[in-house]
Every structure is written in structure tokens, then in C-alpha cells.
């Protein structure tokens, strides 16, 4: 059986598409070609690189834990709860990190939690100072990552058939038991996807961290900030850090697609 001919169309479409593919691929490949393996590994002996790696790992993990802890219950409420006045306003608010540039987010955080900020003023009375501390990095990352997680988690909970939760209740499982034992396990692939997306966003956070937390080595200088800082003196170190971030990002993507295949497969 011959396939219907589309003439030149596929070739021309591929031609245009290829320009975009190369546009994305060339920078990725270039990164890997800009450093020798020896230089790549040597970079990790440098304190500034080590500090940035360790700081990024710590802060992003804490940020994600916080986002998951506070975002999961909210996502479940929004997915399954009754409607209420102001619901659409709340949903718009939850997308603020999506539509505001990170620099704006950083400035907003400063206005809220800075020394003279709306909340920061009162925190200062308790001897708590957020800006330019490691905690501020976590705050900036959580702020930027939260929208990704809540949106995805909400979709995941919406995807769980309400009938299952209802039957669970009639079988004697209370609301908590039904949520923790039935709905969360069923929504787990979506929850993990959301957490991974939020995590990669948190790791890549630059603008908000720069404005709200500053750029102090070992304290607030995360990997993206370290790349920016060392670029002028040590391209090799900057590229090495960039490669780590990129490999990590692809690793997450790969793990997620594996996860989704398993979720739709039997079991």
C-alpha cells in the first residue's frame, strides 16, 4: 500500500524544523566541546565550584521539601474541594511566579522580607534577618518553584476518579486515610513530575536569588550565580558547572519519562 503523497511539504517542513533543532542542539553540544575532561574534573577541586555545588544541592532540596509540604494539601483542595468566592483570584495568584520575571520576584521578596519590608520589619524585631542569607536562597527558589508544583499536583489529583475516593469512604476509610492511602499513591506520578519540574526551576534560579539573597560565596552563591561570577576569570570552571546543571536537567527529564511509561503500563 502506497502512502498518500504530500509532495514537497514534508521536506520543506523538516527543513524549517531543522533550523530550530540545530539552534537548540549547537549550544548544548558546544558546552561539552569547550572543556577538556581533565579541566572538567579539575574544576571540581576549586573551592568556589565546590561551595556552589553543595549550596545549590542543599538549598534546592529544602526548597522543594517546603513546596511539596505546603503545596500538596493546597493542590488537593483546589482539585477536589468545593468552589468558593475568590477562587479564581487565588488561582491567578498561584501563577504569579510563572508570569513575573525572576528579577521582579526578587525585588518583591525584598520589599516583603527585606529589613524595611512589610514582614521583614517585624521579623527584625525577633532578630530574624532573611536577606543575603542562605535562607533567602531557599525562599527565592521556593517562590519560583511553587507554581510548577502546585499546578502539576492539582492536575494529578484531578485525574484521580472521585468515585474511588467515595467508595473508599463508604468502606470505612476516613478522609485522611483516603487521601494518604489512596489518592496520593494514585496521583504520585504527577506529584513527582511536579516536584521534579519545581526542583529544576529552583536549581536554575538566578534573578530572584541575585536580588534577594546576593552573591556571597558559600552563603548565597548557587551554581547559576557562580557561573556568572567565575566566567571572566575561569571559563573552564563556568562551563563545568553549566555541564553539571545541564546533565542534571536531562537526567530529570529522562527519569520523568521513564516514570510516566511505568505509570501507564501494567501495575
Amino acid at each position, binding site marked *: 500500500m502506497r502512502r498518500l503523497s504530500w509532495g514537497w511539504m514534508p521536506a520543506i517542513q523538516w527543513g524549517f524544523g531543522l533550523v530550530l533543532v540545530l539552534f537548540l542542539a549547537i549550544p548544548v553540544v558546544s558546552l561539552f566541546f569547550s572543556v577538556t575532561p581533565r579541566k572538567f574534573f579539575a574544576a571540581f577541586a576549586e573551592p568556589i565550584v565546590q561551595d556552589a555545588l553543595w549550596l545549590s544541592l542543599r538549598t534546592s532540596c529544602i526548597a522543594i521539601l517546603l513546596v511539596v509540604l505546603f503545596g500538596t494539601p493546597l493542590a488537593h483542595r483546589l482539585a477536589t474541594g468545593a468552589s468558593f468566592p475568590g477562587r479564581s483570584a487565588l488561582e491567578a495568584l498561584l501563577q504569579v511566579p510563572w508570569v513575573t520575571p525572576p528579577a521582579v520576584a526578587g525585588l518583591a521578596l525584598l520589599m516583603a522580607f527585606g529589613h524595611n519590608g512589610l514582614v521583614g520589619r517585624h521579623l527584625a524585631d525577633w532578630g530574624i534577618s532573611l536577606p543575603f542569607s542562605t535562607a533567602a536562597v531557599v525562599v527565592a527558589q521556593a517562590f519560583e518553584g511553587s507554581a510548577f508544583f502546585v499546578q502539576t499536583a492539582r492536575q494529578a489529583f484531578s485525574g484521580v476518579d472521585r468515585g*474511588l475516593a*467515595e467508595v473508599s469512604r463508604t*468502606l470505612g*476509610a476516613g478522609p485522611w486515610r483516603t487521601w494518604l492511602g489512596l489518592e496520593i499513591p*494514585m496521583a504520585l506520578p504527577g506529584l513527582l513530575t511536579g516536584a521534579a519540574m519545581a526542583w529544576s526551576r529552583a536549581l536554575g534560579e538566578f534573578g530572584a536569588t541575585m536580588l534577594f539573597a546576593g552573591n556571597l560565596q558559600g552563603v548565597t552563591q548557587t551554581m547559576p550565580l557562580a557561573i556568572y561570577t567565575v566566567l571572566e576569570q575561569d571559563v573552564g570552571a563556568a562551563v563545568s558547572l553549566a555541564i553539571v546543571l545541564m546533565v542534571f536537567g536531562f537526567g530529570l527529564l529522562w527519569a520523568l519519562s521513564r516514570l510516566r511509561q511505568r505509570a501507564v503500563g501494567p*501495575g
Partner: protein
Amino acid sequence: MQRGLFFDIQVPLPAFRLAVRAEVSPGVTAVVGPSGSGKTTLLRALAGLTVPADGIIQLNGRVLFSAKEGIHLPPERRRVGYVPQQYALFPRLRVIDNVMYGLKARGVPRRERRRRAMAMLERMGIAHLADRRPAQLSGGEAQRVALARALVVEPDVLLLDEPLSALDPETRRQLRSFLRTVLADAGCPVVCVTHDREDVATLADAVLVLKQGRVVAAGSPKDVMEKA
């Protein structure tokens, strides 16, 4: 009035107001009526999944719902068995774990859980399916698992929503006679929503006919179906 189910409830629906009063005695009570007459809403209200605007529900002398007294027992405390139209088997759990779910929620010890679940599967003639997943079951098998899951916790009333409608005619015939035996010794009153006259003739001891949210006829299947 101690044993059995009594309800007198009102539930506002988009098109009309469901207002039903009835006493369900032991045996099978079929609730029939055209689609959209409020049958499923009635069942959900009895299960505690929908809150009536007004009225009272009593089961074996226990008050499940009373608008006047502000009582609304949540589904998990009503001791009702509820089988929705699409069965709602837990897709990730094996058949045996589906059946043990309610026993686990009620704190029945592990070995006892398993023993009772297996006994129930045997009673339903599906012990050989214990390790299957719901996706690997036929419609008739899934229905039996759903029944086993609802009955194993020994509910005070069994609520069935169109138990046979999702099946092909042949399976439906087989399962109908099976259902007749199971419901006969279910040990609790059964409320069965259906729109199939054959179901009523075979299964029901009493019939409640709903139309636009009202009871328009009630009585023995013979009386009611002759009039209709």
C-alpha cells in the same frame, strides 16, 4: 421501628427537588424510574456522599442524617455497602487487596482480613481471581469483586447503582440470577437502582418508582409493574 432503613429527605437538584420518603424493609427494594429522576442522588444521599437539604435518614434505629438535629454521619461511619455504576475498583490493587480494603480500614488484623476476604471471594465464585488486577477482569467479574468488597465488611444496608447496566445481555442474564442468590442471603436490606424491568421482576421484593424526584408508586413488584 428499629430494624431496616427509613428515610424522608429533600435534595435540591438543578432541574427539580428530590423529595422522597420511604421505609425499606429487609429484602431487596428496587428503585426504578426514567434517567434523571433522582435515583442515583437518592443512593448517594443514603451513602452519605451527598448532603440532603432537609430530612432524616435512620438505619436500624441509628440516625445517619437529621437536618433538625444537625447530624450528618460521614460515609465511613454509616456501615453502608455502596457499589457505584462503574464499580470503582481500586486499579492499582489486586482483587484480594480490593476486598480487604474495608477490613483494613476497620482495623481487622491481617490474617483475619485475608481469611474473610478469601471466604467472600469463594462465596462469589471468584477465588481464582484473587491475584488479578481490575484491568484484567471482565465486566461480570469486576461486578462480583465490587459486590465482594462491599459485602465483606458486613454493612447494615447494601446500595447498588445499576448493578447490571454495564454488562452485555448474556453476562447480564447470568449475573442476574447470581445476584438473586447473593442478595437473598446478604443479611441486610438492599436498595438497588435500576431501569431494567427484568431486574425488578427477578430481584426485587419491593419497588419504589421515582419520577422527577417524587415517589409516584410503591409496593410489591407485581402490583407496581402491572400499573405502570
